[in-house]
């Protein structure tokens, strides 16, 4: 590993102050399961540099909590994933988030990884992660290797110039729950819908979020569940632990009087950002769930642009959505 400066902080104010001083040269260290692995692999590119400074936020107590509030639940970004997975409050109020957290990584990862780290992790694309593929767009280079290469796990939606998929399990779950994130900066904090937190390669080729260099993800707020709501998170993966989703789907529905009221559906593993399935949602609303499943699944896959090896992901997306909806029907 290349040498770096190491700072420990105990407050969000200290963290963002150091971030605004070091800006792009600094990286935030929480669990480190992604960041340290990238540093050990000496992953660099024309515009991807190894951090010269690490700001360790594990000492910030005010970032680690799960608390119920008037309009829902608020989770600190420093909360470890195992705490989310084992939280009775989360299991009761947001079963789909409970399911997502429990399927993520392995216990070792869940014990060190944090909510913020999970939402801000870098993509798993093997061209991005491969040292030898230095000319990758996402590292500041001039090409994407995926369309002409090994692309079985790449994006089938929203690729255009870069075909990463978003690897987070919690992001689609939280987007289906209509969560917002609090972003702290030296000037104060702002709230943003999680869905808007992510940006595709057309907006930002070097990063996956709107987070500025002096900003820190501080918390996630989930609104109270609607009446008669039900949810499911299904994750399709090649092996049952320590694997990222080929496709994951988070479904959050409210059903009243035999028909679907609200519906929010988000996919992981299909696109550079966690993908809302707006057409599928629209297809469900106001209908009896059982009768609407087929059409919703068909709608969810509309507009897919598969590459040479990943057409199956479109079928897989339809399949897991169907299973998720059947489980709620």
């Amino acid at each position, binding site marked *: 590993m290349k040498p770096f400066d190491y700072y420990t902080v105990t407050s969000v104010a200290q963290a963002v102050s150091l971030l605004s001083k070091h800006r792009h040269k600094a990286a935030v260290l929480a669990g480190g399961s992604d960041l340290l692995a990238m540093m050990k692999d000496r992953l660099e590119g024309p515009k991807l540099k190894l951090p010269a400074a690490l700001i360790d936020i594990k000492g910030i107590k005010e970032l680690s909590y799960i608390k119920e509030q008037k309009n829902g639940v608020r989770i600190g970004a420093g909360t470890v994933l195992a705490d989310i997975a084992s939280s009775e409050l989360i299991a009761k109020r947001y079963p789909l988030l409970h399911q997502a957290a429990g399927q993520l990584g392995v216990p070792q990862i869940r014990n060190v990884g944090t909510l913020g780290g999970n939402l801000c992790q870098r993509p798993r694309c093997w061209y991005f992660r491969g040292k*030898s593929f230095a000319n990758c767009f996402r590292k500041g280079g001039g090409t994407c*290797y995926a369309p002409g*290469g*090994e692309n079985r796990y790449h994006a089938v939606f929203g690729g255009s110039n870069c075909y990463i998929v978003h690897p987070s399990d919690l992001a689609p779950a939280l987007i289906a729950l209509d969560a917002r994130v609090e972003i702290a900066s030296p000037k104060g904090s702002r709230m943003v819908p999680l869905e808007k937190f992510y940006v595709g390669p057309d907006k930002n080729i070097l990063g996956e979020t709107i987070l500025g260099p002096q900003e820190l993800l501080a918390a996630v707020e989930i609104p109270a569940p609607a009446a008669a709501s039900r949810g499911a998170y299904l994750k*399709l993966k*090649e*092996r*049952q632990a320590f694997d990222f989703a080929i496709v994951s789907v988070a479904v959050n529905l409210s059903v009243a009087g035999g028909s679907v009221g609200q519906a929010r559906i988000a996919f992981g593993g299909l696109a550079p950002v966690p993908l809302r399935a707006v057409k599928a949602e629209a297809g469900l609303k106001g209908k009896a769930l059982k009768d609407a499943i087929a059409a919703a699944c068909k709608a969810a896959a509309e507009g897919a642009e598969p590459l040479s090896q990943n057409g*199956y992901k479109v079928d897989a997306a339809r399949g897991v959505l169907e299973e998720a909806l059947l489980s709620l029907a």
Partner: protein
Amino acid sequence: MSNEFRVVGKRYPKMDAWERVSGQAVYVSDIYLPGMLYGKILRSPHPHARVAGIDTEQAKALPGVKAVLTPKDITDFNWTKCPGRGHHDMPILADIARYAGEDIAVAAAVDEERVQEALDLIKVEYQPLPFVIDPEEALKPAAPKVHPAGNLVGGKPVVLNRGSVEKGFQEADLVYEARYSTPLLQHATAEPRVCVARWERGRLTIWDSLQHTFGTQAGLAYVFKIPMSKVRVVCDYMGGGFGDKIQMERYSVLASILALKTGRPVRIEFDREENFLAAHHRYPAVCYLKYGARKDGTLTAIQAKVVANAGAYCHLDGAMGVLETMKGVYRCPNLKGEGYTVYTNTPEGGAMRCVGHPQGQFAQEVHMDIMAHKLGIDPVAFRMKNFARLEDGDQDKKIPFSSNAMEECIRKGAEASGWAQKWQKPGTSPGPVKKGLGMAIHSCRHGAMALPSAGMVKVNSDGTVNVLIGTADVGGNQKSTMAMIAAEELGVPLDVISVTTADTDVTLDTGSTAGSKQTITAGNAIKLAAADAKNQIFAIAAGELKTAKENLELVGGQIRPKGSDKGIALTAVLRKAPATITGRGTGSLLKGAITHCFAAHFAEVEVDTLSGKVRVLNIYAAHDLGKVINLSGAENQTDGGVIQGIGFGMTENQLFDLDTGICVNPNLVDYKLVTIKDIPEIHIQFIEPLDPGGPYGARGLSEPPYSVPAPAIANAVYNAIGVGMTDLPITIRSILESRNRGAKA
């Protein structure tokens, strides 16, 4: 039968399990010597490139760097025909890189960071050359040449001929042809390649995590032009071999050269990525099969064309390894085989848990299942009709098997799986989540690289015993196996026995610990060595007891005439010995027969046709391994093989980007080993015919459990969805694409 044995056939924990799990076992990767330097190899980033220039000045100037070597610095050393290695087409350091990851230069420095920095400072001017990754592409006339003589290893295919396949196809009611492929697979040993080399007064000691210490001793003596007595190779504990460590490799030579040049001990340890990029692996194979069978299920012809990807260097004859399964698992009077082992610009393909057989047996067993379906015959009955019988053995040379319980493996496996009640015709399972039951068989030759083996048993004056054996304990419980054989033969308790393995100064050569043969060859050597020691002890006791030595037995530490309860203590006899009692024995495979082990696996799966997910619910594994020596060890070995075999079938696949020739997944995140959550219930049955060639009737078990789960699972999936699985691994993608293909068909 097992009542005859006191120790053999019972359950004993691995004798060094405590050391291993408590962290007390010293593996090679735990060895740090005073003054030791860290060696590291500079690897080519290109799949094929000429090194036009190499500048090491800056690297050499870095403080703490003690040596930087390029090909021109090592020309003094013997290498071209180095013994202990299968083929001789690989340089120690390459001036033409033939795969991405190839060894170009090497440095040694005082710590790991410094040696990495030194490598970063070496300036290499590469002239990239055209490259080829796919072996079938590499066979085309216009393909870039990996070696000047062309890409087909040996210049011509290996050919097998028995009877006439033309005649066989004429006699057939069904002739079926298909293409099959298997991926590139890693051993993924817990301990990557590692050695520590030290010179003292002209004598080289190397601690090396290798399965063949004696081959390495001969190899290093050759490299440095010194007598074998001046080379000591030691491998006490090993963190997994699986064939990755089957022979001396160039890292061992490089560490030894660096140690010689710097006058300090040198360690070279691969990181995980290096083990993916620059160690050998299970080579991918493509099989084109055309088989003929009569209506009653009798096979009339087996025709196979195999293309094996050798990678950049030829470790072994890969295509022949695959063809062996077509040659001998089934009886068939007409056989034609054609094997192409092909150079490509990928890392070297080589030995891994049953060379070639898993690739070939996957193809053959899927082929057999589809034929059974087309013939309207139950897959179990189809195998029963055709498996090679005891007398079949080597069907070309007309040599029988030493023993053979395949029939019982198939029958008992089928019973355990509930075949008669559960099995339905392929594609008939209703609903979106389909159930499937499938089977596969395998028979596997023991004794790849078999050499006569020698062992020693030393009986100390206090009655305790040292077993000295050249076998490496590669994780297959070899230490316990040898101890149990010695205990059984001597008549002493197991806990008085210590075992020293794989040290060229102390033990005797037993060949490479490979080919599932050490239980037979080294086991026979230890059994005879123990018998020899006992004979010497009884000769002394016979004088004391005034009886014939043949009339004596050793029971509970007492030597006494058989049937008598009056004797003398073993220790009292040992005190009268003129010198320490040392028994010697040599062992080999049985002559006049070929020794195989046999297996039938049955897999039960559930295929979710909406999402493409396959769940393996149960594996029923029936193995004929002759007499079981250690029941716990044999069960562990079977569990481990099945688990690794499920990875072969369902998740593992090392991939190369065809545009750049670079591996995209050289790590354990993207190269997917199965996890505990993917492992089904494994139901094991052992069938134990007493083999005439092994100690107490034993044979071996290391490799076979790996070879059968993948085709059994493939056939279970075929059974569930009605589409044959022709390519491994069977992933979500393969299920969904097959489903769509099946829907169109």
